[in-house]
Structure formats: C-alpha cells, structure tokens
C-alpha cells in the first residue's frame, strides 16, 4: 500500500503542477508526450513495472496456501 500511496502522490503532484493551470505554450514535449504526462504518468508507470519485478520475484514469500476442502457440498 506504500507503493500505491507513493504512486498516487507522485502522479497527482506532478500532473497538478505540470499540467493544470499552465500556459499550453510553455508545455514541452518528451518522446511526443506533453512533459507533464511523461513525468506524471509514463515515468512512474515504468518504475512501477520495475518495482513489480523486485516485489514478485524477490520480496514475495512462497507460502503454503493450505488444503482445498471445496467441492464436498455438491458430492462430486
């Protein structure tokens, strides 16, 4: 949830400062994206994907999910 909060704050602050109430003539382009879209959405999206590599393949533990007892009620 800390990552979620970080993404929410980053996107909101970057977009609010860079994209809201700004003179359209001052907005630059990065790889064809308006700069505030690039820094507020595209860049954190890429970082989230990198984070998910670490989270899924290094951080998350292999736990036993337990025995499955479903299915008894319909008598197979």
């Amino acid at each position: 949830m800390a990552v979620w909060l970080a993404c929410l704050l980053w996107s909101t602050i970057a977009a609010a400062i860079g994209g809201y109430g700004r003179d359209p003539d001052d907005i630059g382009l990065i790889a064809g994206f308006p700069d505030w879209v690039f820094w507020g959405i595209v860049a954190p999206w890429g970082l989230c994907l990198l984070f998910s590599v670490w989270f899924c393949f290094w951080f998350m533990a292999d736990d036993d999910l337990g025995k499955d007892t479903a299915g008894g009620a319909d008598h197979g």
Partner: protein
Amino acid sequence: MADLGGWGSLTLWAEGALPTRGSPYILVAFGAYMVGVFLLGALAHHLLERGSFLKQYFLGDRKLGPWVLALTYVATSVSAGSFVGFPSLIYLNGWVMAFWIGGYMVAGLVAKGALAKRLNQVSRLSGSITVPDVLRERFHSPALGLLAGIFLVLFLIVNLVGQFKAGGLIMRKAAEGVTDTAVYQGARDVSVAALDAMGAWDEKTGEQNAGKFYGNEYPDYVLGILIFALTVVAYTTYGGFWAVTWTDVLQGLVIVAGALLLMFFALRQMGGLAPATAALRQQDPRLVTGPGPDNYLPIGLAVSFFFLWTIGAMGQPVGMVRLMACPDTPTLKRSLFMIGIFYALIYLPLVIAFVCARALYPTQYLGDRSDDIMPSMALAFTEEFPLLGGLILAAPYAAAMSAVAGFLLLMSSSLVRDIYQRNINPSVSPRTVRWISYGTTAVVGMVVTLSAMHPPDLLQYIIIFTGAGMGCTFLAPTVMALYWRRATRPGALAAMIGGFCTVTLLWGLGMAGVGKEGATGPAAKKFAPVYLFGLDPMIHGLAVSFGLGVVVSRLTKPLPAALVDPYFLAGQEGQPEAKETTPQP
C-alpha cells in the same frame, strides 16, 4: 504548414474524410476468432466430466497457470468500457485521459498483491468457491452470504446490459462489409419482422429517428446483439469456468494485440506522436492540459479515479474469484508481474492511438458519435490490411465477451450456490446442480439480451456505477474477513449495507438532478452522480463502509474463538488446518 512554437511545424489536418465502409475480410478475421472461442469452449466441457462439478464449473478446480491467471484477470477487468467508452473520452478530452487512467500503473500490484494470498488461503480453509461463500463461512452467517449474493446479482445485471450493448454495436460495425449479401439481408428481415411483431420497432419508427440509435440501423444492432448473446451464452453455459478462462486467454491476447496494432497504425498514419500532440494543441490548447475541455477532470475527480482503478478493483468479486482459483504462490507471483505488463500494453497504447485519432479527425466524431470512434478507427487505420482491421475490431468484442462471460458465470454461481443450494435446497443432487447451473446461465443471458434491446444511453456511466458499487459493497467485508479477527457478523453486515446504500444514494440523487445547478464538466451530465466535495461516490462509499465495519464490530460481541481461530492460526501446532465439512444453513 503551420508554426507550432517550440514543437516545430506540421501540415494541419483539415476535415479528414470519414473512414470507408468495412470489408468482408474483416468478418473473416472475426469468424476465425469466434471459431477459436468455440473450440476452447468445447474442450473445456470435457473437463467438466471429471471431479466436482461445482468446483470445476465455477472455480476451475484451482488449477490455473500463471499465463492463464494473468490473462483471465486482465481480460475480465478490461471490459467494453475500456475499448469503447475510454477511446471516446480520449478523443473528446485529449491528454488529460492519461491522468484519468493512471491508476492502472499500480492496479495489479494493489488489487492482487494485497488480497490474493490471504483470500486464496481462507477460501481453501473454508471450502468456499464464491465470494459470498467466503463471507458466509468466515462469519458463520447465512444472512451475510445471501445478502452478498443478492447485491452481486443486482450489480451484475446492470453491468451486463451495458456490455451487451457494446457487443451489439461492434458486431454491427464488423458486419458492414457483408450487409449487401442475401444471407445478411435474410437475417435482417427476420429481425425486422420479429421487432414489428413485438411492437418494438417498425420502418416508420426508423424513419422518424433517422441518424439516431432507433433509426434505420436499429435492426442491425438487434441482429448484432443476438449474435453476441448466442455466442457468449452458449460457450459460458457449455464450458463453465474453464471455457471462460481459456477463452479469456485468447481474448486477452487479442485485446493486447488489438491495442498495440491500433497504436502502430495510428502512429504510422499520423507520422509520430509529436505531430499528434502538436495538432491537438492547435485544435484546442485544453486538449494538452488539465483539467481538459469543459473542466472534465478536476484534481478531486482524478484522485477518485485513481482510487477506483486500484482500491475499487480490489473489491470486484469477478477478480477475487480468479485469485481464489490460483494453485500456489509461485503461480501467483508470476501472474502478478504479468498483469502489470498487460495493463501497460493495453492502456498506454490506447491513449496514444486515440490522441492520434483526434489529430486525424478533429471534428468528425464529436458529440453523439464519439462512441463510434474505436470501431471506426479500427477500419480507417487498416484500409490496406482488412484482416488486421478485423483482428483490431475483435479486441473490443473480445473485451466485452470476456467480461460478460466472467459476469454470467459469477451471477449463475451466486444464484445456484449462494442462494439456491445454501438457502433453499442444501441436499440438491449433483445432477440437479448441473442442470440448474446450465439453466441459470442461459436464462440470465436471455434476460439481459432482452434488456439490452432498449439499453440506457451512456455505457461508461453504467460501468463506473457498477464498479464503484461492487467495490464499496464487497471490499470492506472481505478485508475484515481476511485480516481482522475481531471483525464481527454485524460489523460485516453494516459495512456491506453501508457501502451499497451510500453509492446507490449518491448516484440516485445525481440522476434525480440534485446538485446539478452551477456544476461543470462531468458533474453536470444528466446521468452523473452527486460528486460530494468534488469526489466520486466510491470514496464516500468506502469511507462509510470501512467506518461502519470498524465501529459496529467494536460495539458488538466477537465471534467465539473456536470459530475464528482456524482462519488465523491454521498450520500452527494444535490448530486445525482446514474445515472438515461445509456447514449447511
């Protein structure tokens, strides 16, 4: 050439010609896709002959692999709204829609990472195969299970009508290349005669509504919706969960390929993304800044949508069921990673493609026609490659089909397991369960098909309402069930009812016209809810639901330790690992 300040110069796009009509080859690609769907459905049916019917039919026997789990999760969550409503909003509002959809950067991690492992464990411990099942078993409350089943059915019926409408519209577009053939004309004549006999529509009505939904193209829509309904209801009924998940894999791949191809062809036609952005700024500077034209996305609403796509997604029962179907943790981890990749490969390409579409066709799809933008662009960008056009057009169709199939199965599981078997006839025979499951899936499909003949106008509002509603109704009770041993039966009930009532009330008041005076942007629309303090009703619904859940649990007597311990101490020495039997009401 026009000078665009620091962004260079480009040839301004004039009123570009509208795309031509479809080619028969589009239907060939569509047909190949449909054959694949049916083959997978038939294969899935063979699996149902083995093992427990209910667990196979509704949960796939908890044997999904990582690719299957990731693609079925993505295909079910990416619905017609993503491929029809969302492109329309990008076309109308420009780059601010990247901010609107931005929550998907972390949606997979949040929705799956936070709940998946624990939900899977508890569903195994309790022997549950549906989300209402989990709540009922964890809190030992048949009333909670029944109420959850009823709320689920209500939300899903509303959502399905919107999905069927999208399916009908896309099928109509796909068939444009063959409308002159005798077969199509024969089918259309039957459709017109049936509508006339029912008193639902006639040629005169068509002429009076020329250019509108009930105009002369209405019988084509009805024909499209019937084809859509027949195919999706047939393979869902026949093959159950395996049919839905396997076809989800095919549909997920079609969705990703469709989004990427659309972006590729759009950029090819536009000559790059920078000229597209420059053209948007030239057309209307508000298309490259927030909050977009007509104050479309104020910061408060942008934050609300970030919540909706992430926290709201956690509370969607259709996603939760897929998490319950995971066999082990390594599968969960790999699928979690893949979901993030798939979301990135779908949503960012869609934003890029429809920014290009706005640059290429500046005015042609403004107003009531904006919902046509996706199917129209699929044909326009691929005039030289109609087979690829068919594949791209199959993407939104696949999105609608996969969402509908998942929802149909969930609804039928609620009716059969949570309402009928659990509350009316606990000793029902396996053979009867099988036929009731087939029957309810088919009947629900038919009811929704009839409702979709006269659908509500705004698809995207329906989908946002049901998504927010299900999130607020199911998330707090589920989180309490999984992580808080002090949570009580009345607390879970209060959380569920509080969330449901808050969302429904704010949407109901909005539709009744409350709070529309002086409102701008989406808040001013006829079908929009009341955005209290500038926030979507989902934020208020979640706050009320979690708040009531905690307060009422604290004020009421906790469940006996013997009933709670198995869910929190399982695996520890001296504690039971799992329930031996499923209790009956």
